[in-house]
């Protein structure tokens, strides 16, 4: 494992950075950064970049835990799980990547929370951000839910792919899901009842952030800084040349899945997402509070999760506004 072989915090010698991400629209900066060679360029000749793609968070976290991965783009839930399960030791968030892109899509005809009474609403996974967001929102609207799926509104956690199938077949009445599933449900005849951005201050909440293993961060802070540079540059690219970025995403997904993703779908989902370097730490914290409020988790201490020093150095050097370190 290359991550462990240079324990001395030296910056010399060849280093391999093993980076994980999902071939997915919410991971656009990662996909574009890899596809367009932005990371390679920023990391320079001394650092070899190895990329791995994942289908779901747990495997990525397992890889980080086992030392098979040095950094990964990942959603807020696995981030919290990795941090809390390792008692705050294993991982650090060094940058944000994306915000937004989540909505409650329901069958046409449902126009208010009250109409959801007795209905079945899907979420990606019990206790994940979307699940919590749905339950908290319902609670605020005075609708009870239970962890086991009972209550006024029946919450059914299931894989997103399956949500599309069950929504299409009429087995569920709606779903609180991230992109690109929002767009896909809309295409399957759904209407957006709640755009989650509307529930957050500044319409911002984290959907993807960049995580590095603490070990790697300690051993190669310089490499992490270069990685963050790459992330910032990738976001720059994504935000300034959306068409090219969308094409790159489509091509990249095509390489892995054997079929390029329809750019129409990407275009449709694009406006709901915001690609920002700010990890929006407050939204993660708030989300956790909500989870505690709806009785899904015990309080978790997130102190020390964020290490935004490098991000702020990079932003400062580029004359961009820094983000607040919580």
């Amino acid at each position, binding site marked *: 494992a290359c991550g462990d072989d240079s324990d001395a915090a030296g910056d010399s010698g060849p280093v391999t950075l093993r980076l994980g991400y999902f071939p997915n629209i919410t991971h656009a900066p990662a996909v574009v950064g890899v596809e367009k060679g932005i990371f390679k360029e920023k990391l320079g000749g001394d650092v070899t970049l190895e990329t791995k793609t994942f289908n779901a968070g747990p495997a990525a976290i397992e890889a980080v835990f*086992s030392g098979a991965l040095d950094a990964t783009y990942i959603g807020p839930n696995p981030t919290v799980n*990795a941090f809390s399960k390792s008692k705050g*030791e*294993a991982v650090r968030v060094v940058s944000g990547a994306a915000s937004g892109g989540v909505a409650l899509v329901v069958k046409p005809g449902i126009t208010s929370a009250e109409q959801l009474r007795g209905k079945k609403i899907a979420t990606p996974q019990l206790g994940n951000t979307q699940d919590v967001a749905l339950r908290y929102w319902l609670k605020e609207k005075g609708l009870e839910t239970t962890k*086991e*799926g009972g209550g006024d509104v029946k919450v059914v956690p299931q894989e997103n792919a399956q949500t599309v199938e*069950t929504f299409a077949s009429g*087995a569920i009445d709606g779903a609180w899901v991230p992109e690109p599933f929002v767009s896909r449900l809309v295409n399957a005849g759904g209407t957006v009842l709640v755009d989650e951005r509307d529930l957050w201050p500044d319409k911002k909440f984290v959907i993807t952030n960049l995580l590095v293993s603490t070990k790697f961060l300690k051993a190669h802070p310089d490499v992490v800084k270069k990685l963050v540079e790459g992330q910032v540059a990738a976001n720059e690219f994504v935000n300034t040349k959306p068409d090219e970025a969308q094409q790159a995403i489509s091509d990249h997904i095509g390489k892995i899945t054997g079929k390029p993703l329809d750019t129409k779908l990407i275009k449709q989902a694009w406006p709901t997402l915001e690609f920002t370097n700010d990890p929006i730490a407050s939204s993660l914290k708030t989300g956790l509070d909500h989870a505690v409020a709806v009785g899904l988790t015990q309080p978790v201490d997130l102190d020390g999760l964020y290490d935004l020093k490098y991000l702020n150095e990079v932003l400062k050097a580029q004359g961009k506004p820094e983000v607040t370190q919580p």
Partner: protein
Amino acid sequence: MASDTLAGSARTDAEISGLDALEIAGREKPPSRAIRLWAATWPKFAALALAVAIWQAVVWSGWKEPWALPGPAVVFEDLGRYALSASLWEGLATTGRRALVGFAAAVAVGLLLGLGVARVKVLRAALGSMITALQTMPSIAWFPLAILLFQLSEQAIFFVVVLGAAPSVANGVIHGVDYVPPLLVRAGRNLGARGLNLYRYVIAPAALPAIVAGLKQGWAFAWRSLMAGELLVVIAERTSIGAQLTYARDFSDAPRLMAIMIVILVLGLLVDTAFGAADKAIRRRWGVLDQAGN
């Protein structure tokens, strides 16, 4: 102790190789029931102790961080908590019921399919190879169809379980029927067994060992399909082992994951014990028990 031919003759001793010695040792009559029980039990405990010891040693070596690879103490502590919680027992109840119903359905389908394919030429030509092909289809490929057909009901889970396990059972039946000694089939026919009676009196009992083997493989397929299928439908207020397994992984909860793995292993052991007893009974009847040395 009785002396014997082999011990009494030097040449044999010299020629006996390691494995042979074990085989012959196995053939000796055990002096008592207690010793027999002990002989059957201690290797299990030894194996278990060895496995736990190696595990503990690896953990102590500091090879991986404790959150990546928790030690036995942590896992067994979590297992204890898990065993005291309602979720294990409720999960077991739900999953166990589904496993039994699904497996029963799979066995029914598999037996019929297997018998049909094994003895009816046209069916064999048409479906024979399809059975293994179906067997290789991963459960998730059936999920969309399951949902189309059964929506979010338990039937969807059973559908996946049956599609996973029935081919295995059918293959066991076909294999068994294919290798029924022709002499016994002839004997049965001559004794007046035709059609269904031939199955009942000759083919089924002759194929029984292979059918039991097929059932065992089918159980494994059924259980694995169930573990996947239980994610398909998380029915209101009903927790299940399959869902708990995935949640443990989703939450990166290594101790709980390993606790559930232990539960699955224990269940597997229990089921195997049942199959093993059935198989042993058959082998005793057929007179092929002694040779294997137990």
